[in-house]
């Protein structure tokens, strides 16, 4: 992709910015495609982009029920990192992070990848042991990570509560310097603009209402904007995976929960890293606009209502104030909830389904954003090859019958 630069900005400024091309095209559905991707979030759009790049001859459409980026891609707390405990996970998320590192230039769209470091806190001696294991395991993958003493953490994060009476004393932590944040909407728009430029039809306000399946093979979909024929269909609809897969008669090992997040009013720079506290569930960063972006625990009952329980919000906010007293007099500006699909082992599913030609990418739980480039790349590869590549083989349906889970939650206790 090209077209965006300081120079083009200057040139268009002289023309009153009247000459900019459409970045987010709005295509109308054609009767048939080679591949249809369902879901206009980050994973779906990335899938479209990488598939179009890998197989230029394919006629590809992406259908989105609402507007692109309207799901979890636009509701998350924008954290990117690859500091996962198990080799299988680390390989997948590291692949995503490496793609992220070149993504702005590749898409010619500033995704504002800010590798400001992600610090994970330990609040006890036992936490420190867990973190030492975690950090070492990541180093064993050849991924950057270093253990920090309490002193080092406080030096990097002066706003942490150091009072002797604090409920959450910091015993240390570990940092992945290459972790950080990226502008979530920009990732969505950047992929959409690039995919469209490669000829993908991006069709918004187009809801899938049924699958056309014959002899165990998918033939197409019914949508709110008419029928679309395609022999290969990929689903990437985080939060609603069970519902959509259900339309194809597939029962998923997934439960949808509401995850709440909130931001403060913008203030001058306070925090230049991303901090995660598995012990309290609080994770926090400060956006470039100056807002403190805070996320917390799941509401632990199945939900598709994008409003969480206020008492969960309260406990997260209270824990955040306890850890960062400076928040006490700062104001919460906006809170929201996103619907995440959670698998028992907090690891994703990228695989073929029991229906021929129907593929799925789901189960990222609370951590889908950081995986977008890998999730898209792998799903595109799966659709193109019709067999799982090495990266995603551990993340198929087979693990639920064999028991070979990739249990990040069980082992590390958190998987945001």
């Amino acid at each position, binding site marked *: 992709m090209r077209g965006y630069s300081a120079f083009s900005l200057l040139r268009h400024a002289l023309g009153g910015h009247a000459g900019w091309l459409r970045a987010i095209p709005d295509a109308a559905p054609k009767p048939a495609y080679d591949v249809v991707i369902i879901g206009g979030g980050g994973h779906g759009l990335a899938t479209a982009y990488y598939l179009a790049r890998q197989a230029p001859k394919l006629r590809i459409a992406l259908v989105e029920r609402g507007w692109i980026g309207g799901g979890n891609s636009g509701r998350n707390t924008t954290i990117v990192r690859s500091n996962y405990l198990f080799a299988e996970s680390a390989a997948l998320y590291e692949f995503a992070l490496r793609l992220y590192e070149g993504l702005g230039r590749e898409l010619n769209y500033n995704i504002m990848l800010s590798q400001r470091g992600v610090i994970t806190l330990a609040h006890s001696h036992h936490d420190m042991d867990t973190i030492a294991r975690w950090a070492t395991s990541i180093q064993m993958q050849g991924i950057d990570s270093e253990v920090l003493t309490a002193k080092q953490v406080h030096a990097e994060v002066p706003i942490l509560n150091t009072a002797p009476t604090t409920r959450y004393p910091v015993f240390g932590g570990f940092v992945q310097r290459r972790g950080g944040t990226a502008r979530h909407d920009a990732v969505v728009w950047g992929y959409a603009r690039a995919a469209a430029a490669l000829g993908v039809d991006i069709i918004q306000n187009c809801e899938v209402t049924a699958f056309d399946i014959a002899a165990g093979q998918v033939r197409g979909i019914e949508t709110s904007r008419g029928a679309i024929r395609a022999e290969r269909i990929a689903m990437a609809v985080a939060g*609603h995976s*069970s*519902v959509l897969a*259900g339309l194809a008669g597939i*029962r*998923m*090992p*997934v*439960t*949808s929960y509401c995850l709440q997040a909130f931001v403060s009013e913008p203030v001058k720079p306070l925090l230049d890293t991303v901090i995660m506290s598995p012990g309290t569930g609080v994770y926090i960063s400060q956006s470039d606009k100056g807002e403190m972006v805070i996320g917390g625990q799941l509401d*632990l*009952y*199945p*939900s*598709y*209502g994008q409003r969480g*329980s*206020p*008492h969960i919000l309260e406990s997260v906010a209270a824990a955040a104030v306890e850890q960062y007293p400076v928040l006490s007099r700062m104001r919460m500006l906006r809170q929201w909830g996103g619907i995440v699909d959670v*698998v*028992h082992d907090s690891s994703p599913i990228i695989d073929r389904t029991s229906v021929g030609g129907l593929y799925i990418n789901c189960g990222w739980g609370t951590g889908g954003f950081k995986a977008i480039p890998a999730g898209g790349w792998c799903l595109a590869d799966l659709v193109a090859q019709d067999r799982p590549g090495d990266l995603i083989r551990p993340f198929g349906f087979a693990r*639920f*019958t*064999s028991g070979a889970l990739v249990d990040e939650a069980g082992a590390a206790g958190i998987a945001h």
Partner: protein
Amino acid sequence: MFLIPCPHCGERAQMEFSCGGEAVIVRPASAASDEAWADYLFGRANPKGWHYERWCHVHGCGEWFNLLRHTVTHAIRGPFAIRDAAPKVPQ
């Protein structure tokens, strides 16, 4: 924070309860196939709409019971006894 009707204590704040997930999932005998066992452990209806699920009044009387709850609006019907089959879904 919606209210949950406890069979003994009446309507109480949801924060007093914990959700046990989908109700009446039948536990296969140990002879079951790996597939059947996997479906028991992991397979979930996870509907967008009415969901038959079990709750525990964990911070109250401790009772376990079933509810029919709408997963979007959190409208609730019940409570029902833990062994009761799922009632008809409201229109």
